[in-house]
Protein backbone atom coordinates (compact mmCIF):
# COMPACT_ATOMS: atom_id res chain seq x y z
CA UNK A 1 0.00 0.00 0.00
CA UNK A 2 1.01 3.59 -0.49
CA UNK A 3 0.90 6.37 2.09
CA UNK A 4 2.11 9.94 2.41
CA UNK A 5 4.11 11.05 5.44
CA UNK A 6 4.37 14.72 6.40
CA UNK A 7 6.64 16.44 8.92
CA UNK A 8 6.12 19.91 10.38
CA UNK A 9 8.10 22.65 12.15
CA UNK A 10 11.20 21.61 14.12
CA UNK A 11 10.57 17.98 13.27
CA UNK A 12 10.69 18.77 9.55
CA UNK A 13 14.01 20.53 10.10
CA UNK A 14 15.41 17.50 11.91
CA UNK A 15 14.14 15.07 9.27
CA UNK A 16 15.47 17.24 6.45
CA UNK A 17 12.27 16.89 4.41
CA UNK A 18 8.65 18.08 4.54
CA UNK A 19 6.99 14.96 3.17
CA UNK A 20 7.59 11.67 1.44
CA UNK A 21 5.62 8.94 -0.31
CA UNK A 22 6.12 5.46 1.09
CA UNK A 23 5.25 2.07 -0.32
CA UNK A 24 4.65 -0.37 2.54
CA UNK A 25 4.50 -4.17 2.52
CA UNK A 26 1.85 -6.01 4.53
CA UNK A 27 -1.69 -5.30 5.73
CA UNK A 28 -1.05 -4.35 9.35
CA UNK A 29 1.54 -1.60 9.32
CA UNK A 30 1.23 0.73 12.31
CA UNK A 31 2.27 4.35 12.79
CA UNK A 32 5.11 3.13 15.02
CA UNK A 33 6.31 0.83 12.22
CA UNK A 34 6.47 3.77 9.81
CA UNK A 35 8.39 5.92 12.29
CA UNK A 36 10.91 3.09 12.77
CA UNK A 37 11.25 2.81 9.01
CA UNK A 38 11.95 6.51 8.43
CA UNK A 39 14.29 6.90 11.43
CA UNK A 40 16.32 3.68 11.14
CA UNK A 41 14.61 1.90 14.00
CA UNK A 42 13.97 4.62 16.54
CA UNK A 43 10.90 4.82 18.78
CA UNK A 44 8.58 7.82 18.64
CA UNK A 45 9.53 10.50 21.24
CA UNK A 46 6.81 11.07 23.85
CA UNK A 47 6.41 14.72 22.85
CA UNK A 48 5.76 13.96 19.18
CA UNK A 49 2.15 14.33 18.05
CA UNK A 50 0.63 12.11 15.38
CA UNK A 51 -2.27 12.55 12.99
CA UNK A 52 -3.76 10.30 10.33
CA UNK A 53 -5.94 11.99 7.73
CA UNK A 54 -5.85 15.15 9.88
CA UNK A 55 -7.22 13.52 13.05
CA UNK A 56 -5.08 13.04 16.16
CA UNK A 57 -4.21 9.45 16.84
CA UNK A 58 -1.55 7.28 18.49
CA UNK A 59 1.38 5.09 17.51
CA UNK A 60 -0.66 1.87 17.51
CA UNK A 61 -2.99 3.00 14.72
CA UNK A 62 -2.90 0.64 11.73
CA UNK A 63 -2.62 2.39 8.40
CA UNK A 64 -4.50 1.79 5.19
CA UNK A 65 -3.80 2.55 1.56
CA UNK A 66 -3.93 6.25 0.74
CA UNK A 67 -3.57 7.50 4.33
CA UNK A 68 -1.86 10.80 5.08
CA UNK A 69 0.24 10.37 8.21
CA UNK A 70 1.83 13.38 9.92
CA UNK A 71 4.35 13.79 12.73
CA UNK A 72 4.83 17.11 14.50
CA UNK A 73 6.04 18.74 17.75
CA UNK A 74 3.71 20.20 20.42
CA UNK A 75 1.51 22.91 18.93
CA UNK A 76 2.06 26.59 19.84
CA UNK A 77 -0.72 28.55 18.17
CA UNK A 78 -2.97 31.24 19.59
Amino acid at each position, binding site marked *: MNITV*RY*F*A*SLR*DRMGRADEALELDGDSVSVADVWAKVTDGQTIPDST*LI*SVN*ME*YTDADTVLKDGDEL*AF*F*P*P*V*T*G*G
Partner: protein
Amino acid sequence: MKVIVQQESFEPGQVIQEFQDGLPRGKHGGVVSFVGTMRDFNDGEDVVSMTLEHYPGMTEKHIEQVCAEAAERWDIVDSLVVHRYGEMFPNDAIVLVAVWSAHRANAFDACRFIINYLKARAPFWKCETTTAGEKRWVEHNSKDPKAEISDSEGVKRSA
Protein backbone atom coordinates in the same frame (compact mmCIF):
# COMPACT_ATOMS: atom_id res chain seq x y z
CA MET B 1 -19.72 29.91 12.57
CA LYS B 2 -16.86 31.20 10.51
CA VAL B 3 -13.19 30.16 10.61
CA ILE B 4 -10.54 32.03 8.65
CA VAL B 5 -6.86 31.06 8.52
CA GLN B 6 -4.99 33.72 6.58
CA GLN B 7 -1.56 35.16 5.94
CA GLU B 8 -2.68 38.79 5.76
CA SER B 9 -2.77 41.01 8.83
CA PHE B 10 -6.20 42.07 10.09
CA GLU B 11 -7.78 44.70 12.32
CA PRO B 12 -9.85 42.85 14.95
CA GLY B 13 -12.41 45.58 15.60
CA GLN B 14 -13.16 45.94 11.91
CA VAL B 15 -13.49 42.18 11.41
CA ILE B 16 -15.84 41.89 14.41
CA GLN B 17 -18.03 44.73 13.16
CA GLU B 18 -18.23 43.36 9.61
CA PHE B 19 -19.23 39.91 10.85
CA GLN B 20 -21.75 41.36 13.28
CA ASP B 21 -23.34 43.39 10.47
CA GLY B 22 -24.26 40.05 8.85
CA LEU B 23 -25.95 38.61 11.95
CA PRO B 24 -29.72 38.73 12.52
CA ARG B 25 -30.55 42.09 14.03
CA GLY B 26 -31.55 42.16 17.69
CA LYS B 27 -30.81 38.49 18.46
CA HIS B 28 -27.57 38.99 20.37
CA GLY B 29 -27.10 40.95 23.56
CA GLY B 30 -23.35 41.08 23.46
CA VAL B 31 -20.10 39.90 21.94
CA VAL B 32 -17.09 38.59 23.85
CA SER B 33 -13.79 38.62 22.00
CA PHE B 34 -10.25 37.49 22.67
CA VAL B 35 -7.39 38.90 20.59
CA GLY B 36 -3.98 37.28 20.89
CA THR B 37 -1.15 39.64 19.95
CA MET B 38 2.56 39.16 19.47
CA ARG B 39 4.94 40.01 22.33
CA ASP B 40 8.41 41.42 21.72
CA PHE B 41 9.94 39.10 24.33
CA ASN B 42 9.87 35.41 25.16
CA ASP B 43 11.95 33.18 27.43
CA GLY B 44 14.05 36.14 28.55
CA GLU B 45 15.04 37.35 25.07
CA ASP B 46 13.88 40.14 22.79
CA VAL B 47 11.99 38.92 19.74
CA VAL B 48 11.84 41.00 16.55
CA SER B 49 9.58 38.82 14.41
CA MET B 50 7.81 35.51 14.34
CA THR B 51 6.75 33.10 11.62
CA LEU B 52 3.74 30.88 12.20
CA GLU B 53 3.51 27.61 10.32
CA HIS B 54 0.38 25.49 10.21
CA TYR B 55 -1.02 22.27 8.76
CA PRO B 56 -3.45 23.47 6.05
CA GLY B 57 -6.71 21.59 6.18
CA MET B 58 -6.20 20.08 9.62
CA THR B 59 -6.08 23.53 11.20
CA GLU B 60 -9.42 24.64 9.80
CA LYS B 61 -11.01 21.25 10.50
CA HIS B 62 -10.13 21.30 14.20
CA ILE B 63 -11.09 24.91 14.80
CA GLU B 64 -14.44 24.31 13.08
CA GLN B 65 -14.97 21.24 15.27
CA VAL B 66 -14.43 23.18 18.48
CA CYS B 67 -16.68 26.03 17.33
CA ALA B 68 -19.38 23.48 16.58
CA GLU B 69 -18.91 21.90 19.99
CA ALA B 70 -19.10 25.32 21.67
CA ALA B 71 -22.40 25.93 19.88
CA GLU B 72 -23.72 22.62 21.24
CA ARG B 73 -22.56 23.28 24.79
CA TRP B 74 -23.66 26.91 25.12
CA ASP B 75 -26.61 28.87 23.78
CA ILE B 76 -24.78 31.26 21.46
CA VAL B 77 -25.83 33.16 18.34
CA ASP B 78 -22.60 32.72 16.36
CA SER B 79 -18.81 32.52 16.55
CA LEU B 80 -15.89 33.79 14.52
CA VAL B 81 -12.22 32.75 14.57
CA VAL B 82 -9.45 34.40 12.56
CA HIS B 83 -5.90 33.05 12.88
CA ARG B 84 -2.86 34.23 10.97
CA TYR B 85 0.09 32.29 9.62
CA GLY B 86 3.32 33.52 8.05
CA GLU B 87 5.56 36.35 9.27
CA MET B 88 4.35 38.84 11.88
CA PHE B 89 5.76 41.49 14.17
CA PRO B 90 5.23 42.73 17.76
CA ASN B 91 1.73 44.08 18.43
CA ASP B 92 0.30 42.29 15.38
CA ALA B 93 -2.92 40.40 16.03
CA ILE B 94 -2.25 36.65 15.79
CA VAL B 95 -5.70 35.31 16.60
CA LEU B 96 -9.22 36.57 17.14
CA VAL B 97 -12.02 34.59 18.79
CA ALA B 98 -15.40 36.33 18.98
CA VAL B 99 -18.66 34.89 20.28
CA TRP B 100 -22.10 36.47 20.16
CA SER B 101 -24.91 35.43 22.50
CA ALA B 102 -28.13 36.74 23.96
CA HIS B 103 -26.61 36.88 27.46
CA ARG B 104 -22.99 37.45 28.43
CA ALA B 105 -22.24 34.30 30.43
CA ASN B 106 -22.58 31.98 27.45
CA ALA B 107 -20.39 34.21 25.29
CA PHE B 108 -17.64 34.39 27.95
CA ASP B 109 -17.65 30.62 28.50
CA ALA B 110 -17.73 29.71 24.81
CA CYS B 111 -14.97 32.19 23.94
CA ARG B 112 -12.69 30.83 26.69
CA PHE B 113 -13.42 27.26 25.60
CA ILE B 114 -12.57 27.96 21.95
CA ILE B 115 -9.28 29.80 22.60
CA ASN B 116 -8.12 27.24 25.17
CA TYR B 117 -8.85 24.36 22.83
CA LEU B 118 -7.23 26.16 19.91
CA LYS B 119 -4.02 26.78 21.84
CA ALA B 120 -3.87 23.18 22.98
CA ARG B 121 -4.81 21.38 19.76
CA ALA B 122 -4.81 23.46 16.57
CA PRO B 123 -1.69 22.56 14.54
CA PHE B 124 0.24 25.84 14.52
CA TRP B 125 3.93 26.29 15.32
CA LYS B 126 5.77 29.51 16.16
CA CYS B 127 9.32 30.19 15.01
CA GLU B 128 10.84 33.34 16.56
CA THR B 129 13.68 35.54 15.34
CA THR B 130 15.62 37.18 18.20
CA THR B 131 17.46 40.51 18.08
CA ALA B 132 20.66 38.49 17.64
CA GLY B 133 19.21 37.08 14.42
CA GLU B 134 18.74 33.61 15.85
CA LYS B 135 15.72 31.64 14.61
CA ARG B 136 14.24 29.28 17.18
CA TRP B 137 11.13 27.14 17.34
CA VAL B 138 8.88 27.76 20.33
CA GLU B 139 8.62 24.33 21.90
CA HIS B 140 5.67 25.09 24.18
CA ASN B 141 3.22 27.91 24.79
CA SER B 142 3.98 29.92 27.92
CA LYS B 143 1.91 28.93 30.93
CA ASP B 144 -1.05 30.97 32.04
CA PRO B 145 -1.71 29.60 35.54
CA LYS B 146 -5.29 30.77 35.63
CA ALA B 147 -6.02 29.22 32.23
CA GLU B 148 -4.26 25.95 32.84
CA ILE B 149 -7.18 24.09 34.37
CA SER B 150 -9.49 25.28 31.63
CA ASP B 151 -6.93 24.34 28.96
CA SER B 152 -6.81 20.72 30.01
CA GLU B 153 -10.53 20.67 30.55
CA GLY B 154 -11.04 21.98 27.02
CA VAL B 155 -8.89 19.26 25.50
CA LYS B 156 -10.56 16.53 27.49
CA ARG B 157 -14.03 17.66 26.51
CA SER B 158 -13.04 18.01 22.86
CA ALA B 159 -11.05 14.81 22.39
